[in-house]
C-alpha cells in the first residue's frame, strides 16, 4: 500500500505522542513522504492528545484527515466521535475498558483490545500507547514491526530498563493484534 494513515487518540499520560513519534520516524526512513501532526493543548498534562501520521510515496497534501484508514482510540469514552473518523473500509482499534458505546456503522472493521489491562500488568499506564501501536501494526501491516523496534531502540538508547519495558510493551501489543487479526 503506497499510502498509510493512522490517527491515534487518548489522554495525557498514555504515551500517545511517543507512539506517534516512533511510528512516524520509522516510516520516514522507508517512505519519500511522511507527516506527523501531534495535537495537544497548552496544558501538557491531562488534556486530550491525538496525532495523525501519514506516510506515502506520493506527495501528502493535507496532513490533517477528516477520516483515516486506521484509527486507534485509547480512551473509549470518545468512541462515537472517533468512529466518525474511520474511513469506510478502514479499521478502528479501541481500548476496551469502559467501552459502553455501540457501533453506529458497519463499513469498517472494529477491534476492541485490552490495552490498559496489559499496561497496568506491566506496571505503567504510559505504556498503553506503544501496546496499541503494536496491535495496530499487526492488524494493518502498514510497516514492519522491526522498523518500529529499531526506533524504540534509538529513542531509549542508554536507558536499558526503559528500553526493555517499551520494547516489551510494543511486542505484547503486536502479539495481541496478530491474535485479533
Amino acid at each position, binding site marked *: 500500500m503506497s499510502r498509510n494513515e493512522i490517527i491515534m487518540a487518548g489522554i495525557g499520560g498514555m504515551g500517545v505522542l511517543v507512539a506517534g513519534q516512533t511510528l512516524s520516524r520509522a516510516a520516514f526512513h522507508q517512505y519519500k513522504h511522511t507527516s506527523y501532526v501531534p495535537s495537544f493543548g497548552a*496544558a*501538557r*498534562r*491531562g*488534556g486530550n492528545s491525538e496525532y495523525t501520521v501519514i506516510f506515502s510515496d506520493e506527495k501528502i497534501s493535507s496532513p490533517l484527515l477528516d477520516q483515516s484508514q486506521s484509527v486507534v482510540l485509547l480512551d473509549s469514552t470518545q468512541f462515537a466521535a472517533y468512529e466518525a473518523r474511520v474511513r469506510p473500509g478502514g479499521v478502528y482499534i479501541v481500548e476496551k475498558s469502559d467501552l459502553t458505546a455501540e457501533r453506529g456503522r458497519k463499513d469498517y472493521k472494529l477491534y476492541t483490545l485490552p490495552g490498559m489491562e496489559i499496561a497496568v500488568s506491566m506496571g505503567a499506564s504510559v505504556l498503553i500507547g506503544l501496546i496499541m501501536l503494536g496491535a495496530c501494526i499487526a492488524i494493518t501491516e502498514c510497516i514492519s514491526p522491526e522498523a518500529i523496534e529499531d526506533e524504540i531502540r534509538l529513542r531509549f538508547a542508554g536507558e536499558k530498563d526503559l528500553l526493555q519495558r517499551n520494547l516489551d510493551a510494543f511486542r505484547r501489543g503486536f502479539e495481541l493484534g496478530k491474535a485479533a487479526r
Partner: protein
Amino acid sequence: MNKKAEGPKKEKVVGTPALFVTEWWTQFLWDMYCPGCQTPLVGRLIAEAIEELGIGDRAIMVMGNGCHAYLAGGLDFDVTSGGHGRAPDIATAMKRVMPDGIVFTVQGDGDCVAIGADALIGALSRGEKITIIMVNNTNYGTTGGQMAPTTIVGQVTTTSPQGRNPDVEGYPTHAAELVATFRGVSYSARGSLHTTANYRRTKKYITTAFQRQAEGVGLSFVEVITACPPNWHMTPIESLAWIEEKAIPDFPLGEFKNVTHIE
C-alpha cells in the same frame, strides 16, 4: 467524591480551606497541576491567612500568566488575569479605586521578575499598598521548563541545556531582597514548603504580608520556593531534597524587611 467517614464520633480538623471554590477548581483547572507540584499549597496558605485575619470580605485578586495562575479557579475571590507580567499594574488600578480592598497578586518567578519587572519596579517605586505573592519554581513552568531569572547556577533547563553558566547567563535574581531595598515596602520575605517547619514559617510570612496591607503600610511581598518535579526532571520527593540542598543555599529563607510604618 468518595471521602467518607465512618466509625467513632469525629470532627474534621483539616480539610480543603474554606476560601476555596472546589467546583471551579476541580472542573477547569485542577488537573493542570503535575504530581508533586507545590503551587496549590501557596493557594492554601493564602486562603488560610486571609481567613484567619478576617479580611476575606475585602479581598480581590490578580493572577499572572503561568502555572501559578490556575489558582484563579481555586481561591474564592473575584479574579482577573491580564497580560504576562502585568499583575502589579492591574492590582495598582484596583487598589487605587478601592483603597479598602485587600488586593493581591499571585505571580510566577518569570512573570514577576522577568517580563513583569517594570510592573514590579513601578509598583515598588510608587509604593502601592498591595500584596504580591511570587511562586518561585526556578523556571518557566507552563511553557515547559525554560530558564528563568531565578534558575540557579548549574541548573539544567530546556534553554540552559548545559546548566546555567553565571558567566554567560548571570546569577539568579533575588526578588525578596530586591524588593526589600525599596522604601515604600512594608514587608518582604522568602519561604519554602519543603519541610513542615518551613511550611509553618511561610504561612506566617504570608499572614504578615496581608496584615501589613490591612494596616495600610506599604507594599508587601512574599516569595515562596516550590517544587516543579517534571521540569526539574525529578520525582516529587527528590524535588524536596533539591530545594534543601541546592535552592536554599542560593535563596536564603527569612524576612528581609518588616516595618509597621514607613519613616
